């Protein structure tokens, strides 16, 4: 019978905790995963700022998401502005997992000077309560100067928008007269209208 059973695990426990500045990715991974207390946010944020290994970065972001405090989200939010696409995506994923903390940060993110930040921040409105999300997106649609940021807000409204959003959608589409924006506003209005 080729099937065997061992009383204990056949292999030793994969990693032992070390420190965030460890020489090997495995050691840093283990360290990041073990740091889940609110007091760890500063150390995790610091490590995140210079960690190059994608897997370790993920582990640091998971720990920050898990801690989920306002401070934790505040440490991750600046990474939305990174030049590194992977880091931006990782930061957004982590923030999506912290809906409570994100709600507090959104107003500032949605008025950031950098259009790219405003655009990506719209995504985060998906995870906050619908009423607040609709209000923030409509507010943005009325004052935003960049067409792509508006498109991002309309995309979010398609999922979470309530009928209150319809006038703002129309105003925005008229203001820009861009084919994609007009298309988006129309589809969004259809989806939202059908939600009544």
């Amino acid at each position, binding site marked *: 019978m080729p099937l065997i059973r061992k009383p204990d695990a056949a292999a030793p426990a994969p990693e032992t905790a070390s420190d965030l500045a460890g020489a090997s990715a495995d050691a840093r991974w283990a360290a990041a995963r073990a740091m889940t207390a609110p007091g760890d946010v500063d150390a995790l944020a610091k490590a995140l700022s210079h960690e190059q290994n994608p897997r370790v970065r993920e582990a640091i972001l998971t720990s920050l998401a898990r801690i989920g405090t306002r401070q934790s989200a505040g440490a991750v939010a600046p990474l939305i502005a990174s030049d590194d696409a992977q880091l931006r995506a990782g930061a957004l994923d982590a923030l999506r997992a912290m809906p409570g903390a994100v709600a507090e940060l959104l107003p500032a993110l949605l008025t950031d000077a950098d259009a790219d930040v405003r655009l990506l921040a719209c995504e985060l409105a998906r995870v906050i309560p619908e009423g607040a999300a609709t209000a923030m997106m409509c507010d943005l649609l009325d004052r935003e100067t960049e067409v*792509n940021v508006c498109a991002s807000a309309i995309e979010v409204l398609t999922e979470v928008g309530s009928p209150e959003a319809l006038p703002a959608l129309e105003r925005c589409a008229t203001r820009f007269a861009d084919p994609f924006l007009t298309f*988006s506003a129309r*589809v969004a209005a259809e989806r939202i209208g059908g939600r009544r």
Partner: protein
Amino acid sequence: MAEPARKRILVVDDASLVRMYYREALEAAGYEVDEALNGLEAMERLLSAPPALLIVDVNMPQMDGLTFLKVLRRQELPISGTPALVISTEAKPQDREAARAAGANYYLVKPVRPEVLTAYAALLTGRAA
């Protein structure tokens, strides 16, 4: 004379409105369109139904478009060489450079007009425009 099979294009973008917009334009131009919401899903679709062209956004959850292209280009599979048009909101020169370095054939900045999209699709799938 039998009609040639429609060429397949895989649109990779987390925004449903963008996918819908591209789909309308591309289907009207005679392409078959598949969709994926992020880079990892794109890999799955690619492996199941190889397309003639990839249209890839950059900012997506789980796996961004550039990471996806890098992973794809380093595999040693026939699909690794699939032409890729990156269409992103990012407009800085370093964003364009990063896309090239990741393996993009062309880079466009959103919003893209339907006629531009189909012109590039024709170019990259080797069809007469």
